């Protein structure tokens, strides 16, 4: 899968490129509007990660130009640190697929990209096998030997996010932000995510041993696959 990062902060683009490269994506980078335009007209991408404030122009202009080219299905995720309240709405109305406010976590970016992939290319496998559990992303269900587990929405979200970021420690803060969003001040007390994880683990453990569902002391959780 091909990704174009349009971002004037080279350090940030570089870190994103490293991370996404390890995930198996091919990454290109444009750091100003003119070079981004060139790349967009020449190639098509699976994802365009678009910063709004660019040297030489606004990210929205780029988005509008892209939407005028017929037959293009590049998914656009806006990444911005701009403070304007209506940027999110404006971006989504202009045809962006998602919007992430900086600073974001790379694992969160990955989760958003996966969600878009599932939405856009319906052929994507919607069931993931985790040891003997089957995670049905489309129907928000987890099954074991054909038997449906009774998970709450939040528990499913947590499980899904950990599975998506398998073999990687996900901190409580990161997990909380993913599941509850960017609720101000509430994050300060992130231990409450433990209650949900505890319940989730209990429900999974009824069916099979879950030594692969690891608690990383004082940090967070990891699912090993």
């Amino acid at each position: 899968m091909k990704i174009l990062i349009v971002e004037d902060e080279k350090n940030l683009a570089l870190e994103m490129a490293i991370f996404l490269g390890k995930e198996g994506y091919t990454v290109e980078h444009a750091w100003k509007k003119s070079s981004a335009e060139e790349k967009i007209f020449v190639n098509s991408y699976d994802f365009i990660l678009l910063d709004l404030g660019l040297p030489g122009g606004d990210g929205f202009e780029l988005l509008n130009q892209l939407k005028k080219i017929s037959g293009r299905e590049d998914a656009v995720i806006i990444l911005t640190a701009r403070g304007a309240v209506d940027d999110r709405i404006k971006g989504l109305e202009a045809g962006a697929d998602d919007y992430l406010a900086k600073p974001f976590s790379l694992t969160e970016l990955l989760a958003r990209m996966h969600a878009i992939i599932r939405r856009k290319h319906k052929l994507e496998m919607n069931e993931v096998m985790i040891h003997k559990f089957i995670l049905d992303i489309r129907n928000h269900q987890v099954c074991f030997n054909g038997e449906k587990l009774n998970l709450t929405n939040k528990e499913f979200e947590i499980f899904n996010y950990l599975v998506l970021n398998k073999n990687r420690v996900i901190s409580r803060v990161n997990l909380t932000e993913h599941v509850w969003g960017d609720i101000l001040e509430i994050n300060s007390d992130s231990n409450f995510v433990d209650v949900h994880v505890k319940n989730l683990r209990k429900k999974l453990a009824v069916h099979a041993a879950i030594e692969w569902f690891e608690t990383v002391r004082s940090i967070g959780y990891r699912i090993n696959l």
Partner: protein
Amino acid sequence: MKLQFKLALYNTLTKVAIITLLGILILASINHISTKHIQQRLLQKKSKLILNLSNVEINDLLTKQGTFTDYNLLKEEYIILKEVANTKVPLKQYFITEQKSIEGSNEEYQILIADFIYEGKTYQLELGETRSNISQLEHTISVFTFFILIVAVVLTLIADLAFTQFLLAPLYQIIDKKLNKVNDPINFNYEPVATTTQDFKILDQSISSLMNKIATLFLTEKEFIANVSHELLTPISILNTRLENLLNDEQLTSEGENKIFACLKTLSRLKSIINSLLLISKVENNQYHKKDSISIKETVAEVFEELQHRLMMMDLKMEMNISTDHTFYGNQSLIHTLLMNLISNAIKYNIPSGTINVYSLNSKYGFGLFIEDTGKGMDAEQVQNAFVRFEKFQSEKEDSHGLGLAIARSIAAFHQIELTIESHKGKGTRLKLHFPN
């Protein structure tokens, strides 16, 4: 009271005072002048009488002693002559005013009493003239004055009201358009109000230039907020992603991993502080719309659902008693944040197995929402400082950054909601949100 009415009232009162004073003066001087006139006439009559006096006439007058000579129907005048013992020189001559009953009609008379000597004998002449004429005149004049007074007052009141209204119209226009109806300096109407009064022109210009300054400040602040967002959040982004990439390094020791996670946590805290401060600034900078129709009952229910797990964690009992719902226009996500902050505070500072009571009271003054907890409470000083940014109480939870109530206050102020705290140390805290009607 409006300036227009005050001016009209002032004008009316001064006119009433002036006309009343004039009326009293006129009446008094009429009284004085006419008395003088009567006295003058009486003296003339006396001289004439004495000049034409004959023995026959004296006898005639003396025989009619005790009766009145009336040569007019209205008994306006009378004459009495008496012979008196020889008195000393000089001869007496004086005026008196007396109530006299003459042939059944009781009237006030101006009387001249004069002694004179005729052919060696001393006589006392009493000449009287009624004052009823003057009383009638006085009465007529006072009625007339009163009438003039009423007419003048009414006419001037109407004229004053009309004129001050015309004169003050630009002032009221300024007050209405430029002061009362302004809540957003950015969309201020700079068009000058039409007036020829210089003072109003100056007032209008001053308000406009002040508004212009405020609008500029507002825009500068908006720009500043945008800059801060970008300039602070971008480096945090870079750090965040860099640290996350470091975690992917397979050679990383678990100690290194711990330190990186600690760094990420600190970064997250920094991000949270910046975002909170930005939120407060944006709210105070009016960068949010207020177009959502919000139901308090529904929003509270939503917040509770989201916080359910935290209630369970602390084994808290929660009672929601909102009998009548309140709906108003505002910003849904801000109100959600407001209630979220307040209720999660009620959870955070509660005692295990405590209670949270959310209830409403509807009065003619508006809708009141109360959030009551059985928590640790605050003392008076803490209550006073509760809304101060970065102020933290009883916070063993080091993660708290002390901006929750500051956020709540600015959101409440943005929606004209009054937020007050009542608290007793060790007993609990009650928060009141008062929504205007």
